[in-house]
């Protein structure tokens, strides 16, 4: 198999919580939010990885670490073989053109005081792309590419709707001609019918530009539609990863099973509802052993003490669970088959 475009290895990012003066004086170490706690995966060129999980699972932090918006504590982020995590700011600049991002909130992801044309021009300017005349043409081209009127470059973000602003954000990301696009919940702040429009746009752009994508979202329906492969995150770790169809047809991890059963779908007969009670624990006090075990309906004794590693259960399908796939046998556990 060809070398993946992006490979993440054992990435760790913890945030230290602020301490009181007393704690600092007594040298108590700060508590840490273990946002990303040992994540590894690879994305092949031209494919789309969906990263799903609920709030607090660390998927957004993971995205930002890949982009070097946060500096990770440990681990590697190999882009085309080069470890981005080890580069300093200066060496990183050429890579900024090759990985780009689309953010969630169309209302805060654009500088309100800059016209959109100027915003796009500035990107080309800073990266020295093309001559000034070529840049103006490129801006018009970008606007058209995302479905906007190329003559609207003088307008400010406030004059556009949420969906249109999201298009502008996409145009900005594409301006530098990236190979990898990280979309961090790009649809979540939009109305349903506009979501469909932007989703369609992303699909078309991906096809026409040959983009590799990491699509971060909590919306499983959209992830299923867009991704070739899906990774499920819980409390800072990947608990299951598989090709899309496989994950949805044969989920193996109890959390994935519960997650999928909770998604209300139109028209399908409902999956058997697996109720998990309680709330996810905080990423500060991560449970011992398997992180999910306090809420897991199928846990066994081993789950309390030993944290499971990702292992391949079916071809291309990895799970971090002691019980799944015929490991330790729990009395009632049975993964769902299509």
């Amino acid at each position, binding site marked *: 198999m060809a070398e993946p475009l992006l490979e993440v290895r054992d990435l760790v990012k913890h945030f230290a919580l602020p301490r009181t003066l007393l704690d600092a004086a007594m040298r108590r170490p700060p508590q840490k939010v273990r946002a990303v706690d040992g994540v590894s995966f690879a994305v092949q060129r031209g494919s789309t990885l969906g990263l799903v999980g609920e709030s607090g699972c660390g998927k957004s932090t993971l995205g930002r670490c890949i982009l070097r918006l946060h500096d990770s504590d440990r681990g590697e982020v190999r882009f085309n073989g080069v470890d981005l995590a080890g580069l300093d700011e200066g060496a990183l600049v050429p890579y900024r053109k090759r990985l780009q991002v689309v953010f969630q909130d169309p209302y805060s992801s654009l500088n309100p005081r800059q016209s959109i044309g100027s915003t796009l021009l500035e990107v080309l300017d800073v990266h020295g792309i093309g001559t000034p005349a070529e840049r103006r043409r490129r801006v018009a081209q970008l606007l058209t590419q995302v479905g906007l009127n190329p003559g609207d470059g003088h307008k400010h973000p406030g004059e556009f709707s949420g969906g249109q602003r999201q298009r502008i954000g996409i145009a900005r990301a594409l301006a530098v001609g990236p190979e990898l696009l990280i979309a961090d919940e790009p649809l979540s702040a939009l109305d349903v019918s506009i979501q469909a429009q932007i989703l369609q746009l992303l699909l078309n752009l991906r096809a026409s530009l040959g983009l590799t994508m990491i699509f971060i979202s909590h919306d499983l329906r959209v992830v*299923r539609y867009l991704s070739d492969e899906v990774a499920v995150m819980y409390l800072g770790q990947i608990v299951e990863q598989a090709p899309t169809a496989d994950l949805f047809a044969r989920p193996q991890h109890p959390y994935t099973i519960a997650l999928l059963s909770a998604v*209300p779908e139109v028209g399908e007969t409902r999956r058997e509802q697996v*109720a998990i009670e309680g709330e996810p624990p905080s990423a500060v006090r991560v449970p011992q052993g398997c992180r999910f075990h306090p809420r897991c309906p199928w846990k066994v004794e081993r789950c309390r003490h030993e944290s499971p590693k990702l292992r391949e259960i079916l071809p291309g399908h990895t799970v971090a669970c002691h019980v799944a796939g015929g490991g330790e046998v729990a009395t009632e556990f049975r993964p769902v088959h299509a």
Partner: protein
Amino acid sequence: MSGPLLAVEDLRVEIPTRHGIVQAVRGVSFTVQRGETLALVGESGSGKTITCRAIVGLIHSPGHITDGRVLFQGRDLVGLSEREMEGIRGRGIVMAFQDPMTALNPVLTVEAQITEALSQEGSAAARRGRVLELLRQVGIPDPVHRLGAYPQQLSGGQRQRVMLAIALARQPALLLADEPTTALDVTIQAQILRLIAALQREYGMALILVTHDLGIVYHMVDRVAVMYAGQVVELAAREELFARPRHPYTIGLIRSIPSADRGRPLIPIPGTPPELIGMGSGCPFAPRCEWASAECGRGEIPFAPVGEGHWSRCLKADQLEAVAGG
């Protein structure tokens, strides 16, 4: 008492603003029977939240109800004084709001807020007992220790449960739940929806569920009212709506949902919803509609029956019968 529990008739709400008059609700009509669940489906700007607020009399000046009736148990709520409305809120109709963080008072404890909602008769001990019972019913673990908690100390799901406890304190006949799960994770959402359904069964309560998520609608409600630009554009029983949608917007919404079958193309609705200021006549959806013709731009489109218990505000409803739904 016979007749529907709630009957909204041709409700109209206007909000004067600096830029003109926003016609937020333009002739909304629907009924809700005792114990029934009605979904109010729409996107932002459809008027679904304002409709609910109008029902409970929470439209603040300069907005006001300009026309129509809201008949609750046969009595018109429009035009009632604030005092009279206070008598109806809490026992007759309650509203649970979308964002529990802003809907709960951050300086009052959980116990204080639920107690406020209870009738003030009886002893303090009896009231506390009722509070604990409510907390148990909404699934708050270890309720005794949660009495003194403040909203900020609770998670999103727990706040939503507290809000439901407040809403149910006096066993209302009708609950208006405005996007109760939009801000929550999907597993918590499933918990809360199950809870609402259970409480509904227990109390025999009618429910108006405001949502934009057709998936939730599919699994939870009896009837659906689809709203667009301040009007109800389609009203039908749930199965009927998904099997035989008879309004282009409904069809568009259903088609906008990415299907499990990746081969099936996504067909987004083109364009954007209209400004609600200075709306002309004719169908507000026409500019985005693939079946629209010249006559759609003229006059008020009637809300007409297209089947048993199925109404649509579309001149082309018959043509749409051939279009497969869902």
